């Protein structure tokens, strides 16, 4: 609905449209420039990376060579990093979304002893800086011999307080108490009501939390950096960062510079594609949390 169109003279409206579209186009160039750079850099040889203009392609197209180097370097460790990332992020995301949903359902649809206190704790936990906990968690897990395992990365990521908050907000609106009462009248148990009636209705909220938890885990650098020191257990973030420090310190040679950018390209393309495909979920879901808050 456009108020400007109804209200102002159409000349003024047209001028505003040009001006504002222009302004956002400038910001689009800024947003797009780094992504475009990754594409051009990944198609260049190391020499060309330094000698040709950064925001355009070089004459030689070296993408295939770069990809070949990327996937064969250190016995194909990049593929391992991709697999690790997929494993850590998907298990963390599914677990976090499921546990957040269960907890959110309990908070939204039941009255029970200790509810207020527990909900306050969860809200308070949203405020706790995760990174302030990483080093204590490392010290604790290392005294138990659990560092350098996938559990050390996955288990802490299963606790996702913002997910509980979002699901509470979503379920409160999306599932009526009458529906649950009707289920009870029919003699269904509480678990059955949840799994066969409620769960289907809260799928959109579940999908949003799933995406958010996935991004949080796939983004994570500090936690795996601290918990893992075996290169073949790294996720992409830690691996690429290490490849970059090797490149820049010169020990791996200049050779690695384009490989790092090729790795960056390979790892962001599938996620950006997934975001574009699932935009219906995050656009609706992100807003829901914000509005309720």
């Amino acid at each position, binding site marked *: *609905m*456009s*108020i*400007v169109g109804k*209200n*102002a003279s159409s000349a003024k*409206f047209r001028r*505003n*449209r040009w001006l504002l*579209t222009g302004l*956002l186009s400038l*910001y689009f160039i800024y*947003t797009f420039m*780094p*992504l475009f*750079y990754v594409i051009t850099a990944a198609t260049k040889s190391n020499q060309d990376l*330094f000698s040709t203009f950064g925001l355009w392609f070089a004459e030689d197209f070296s993408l295939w060579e770069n990809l070949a180097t990327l996937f064969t370097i250190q016995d194909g460790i990049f593929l391992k990093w991709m697999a690790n990332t997929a494993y850590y992020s998907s298990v963390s995301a599914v677990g976090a979304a*499921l546990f957040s949903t269960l*907890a959110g359902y309990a908070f939204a649809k039941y009255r*029970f002893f200790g509810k207020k206190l527990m909900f306050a704790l*969860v809200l308070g*936990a949203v*405020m*706790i*800086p*995760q990174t*302030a*906990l990483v*080093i*204590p968690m490392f*010290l604790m897990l290392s005294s138990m011999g659990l560092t350098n395992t996938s559990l050390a990365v996955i288990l802490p990521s299963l*606790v996702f307080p913002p997910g509980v908050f979002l699901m509470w907000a979503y379920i409160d609106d999306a599932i009526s108490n009458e529906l649950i009462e009707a*289920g*009870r009248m029919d*003699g*269904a*148990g*509480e*678990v059955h009501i*949840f799994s066969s*009636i409620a769960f289907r209705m809260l799928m959109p909220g579940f999908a949003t939390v799933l995406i958010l938890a996935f*991004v949080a885990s*796939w*983004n994570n*650098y*500090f936690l795996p950096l*601290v918990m893992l020191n075996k290169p073949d257990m790294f996720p992409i*973030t830690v691996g*690429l960062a290490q490849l*970059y420090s090797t490149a820049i310190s010169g020990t791996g040679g200049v050779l690695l510079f384009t490989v*790092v950018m090729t790795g*960056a390209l390979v790892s962001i393309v599938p*996620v*950006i594609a*997934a*975001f574009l495909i699932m935009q219906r979920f995050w656009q609706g879901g*992100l*807003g829901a949390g*914000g*509005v309720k808050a």
Partner: protein
Amino acid sequence: MTERQLKTRPRNRVIVNKKIAPYLFLAPFALLFVAFLIVPLIYAADISLYKKAMVGGVKFVGADNYIKAFADPKFWEGIGVLFKFAFLQIPIMIGTALLFALILDSGVLWAKAFFRISFFIPYAVPAVIATLIWSYLYGPAYGPIGQTARLLGFEAPDFVSQEWILGSIVNIAQWQFMGYNMIIYFAALQAIPGDLEEASVVDGASAFTFATRIKLPMIVPTIIVTVVFSIIGSLQLFTEPFLIQNMARSVINSNFTPNIYAYNLTFVAQQPNYAAAISFLLGGVIAVVSYVFMLATNQRIDR
């Protein structure tokens, strides 16, 4: 379908009743919450009261680590960097996000959906990769920014120098998170009922007045929430400076931010007890700042 399922199931199975159910639903989250949030907190608090002794083992030193941290310029320098960073980054990011959300919401634009989606895309790029890309872009000799400046006949500044480093990190955060906040504001603006709009059109309020005087105040609660999240996020600054350190050793030292300091204390200096105290204090600073911000804004709204 549900009803049929109910009828065909045997009646004598265990039915969880209303009293126990919420605890059952909460159990997995609560268990992990305690194990990976409460316990590490207590553990950190506990070990921060000890110190490695000269000969074997650790000894209880009470608040010594905290007293040391309070007098440690390295810790406070890091806090100073965080505050400068937050004061620069948050207003710019929130400001542009609000502006763009209001523009998108006003309906004047061409290609609304295109802008909305493309601005959000960098959120899908992990901080590590965003920082790597930007460090290439910042490169003095080979970076396209420097190249373009030279083409135009002037010299671009050294983006990772003492003077520019904070701005360069602010830029990375702006690139990554502006769109995320914009989407949240946009959704909040869209949720404002349309009849309000009709009313003010009749009143002849101009689009700009309508956006700033009527719509903006209505999403203040949303803005506050996002600012709190931004405060928490920016005061945990680690990844960006930690990686840029590779190309700017002299500018980013081992205590550039408290998180980098705690990391180095743990893994380089082998002082985990002191690192725990630093982590704990940082958590305290973040909690106090977010709380003060919420208190301050709450009062404003009430007035």
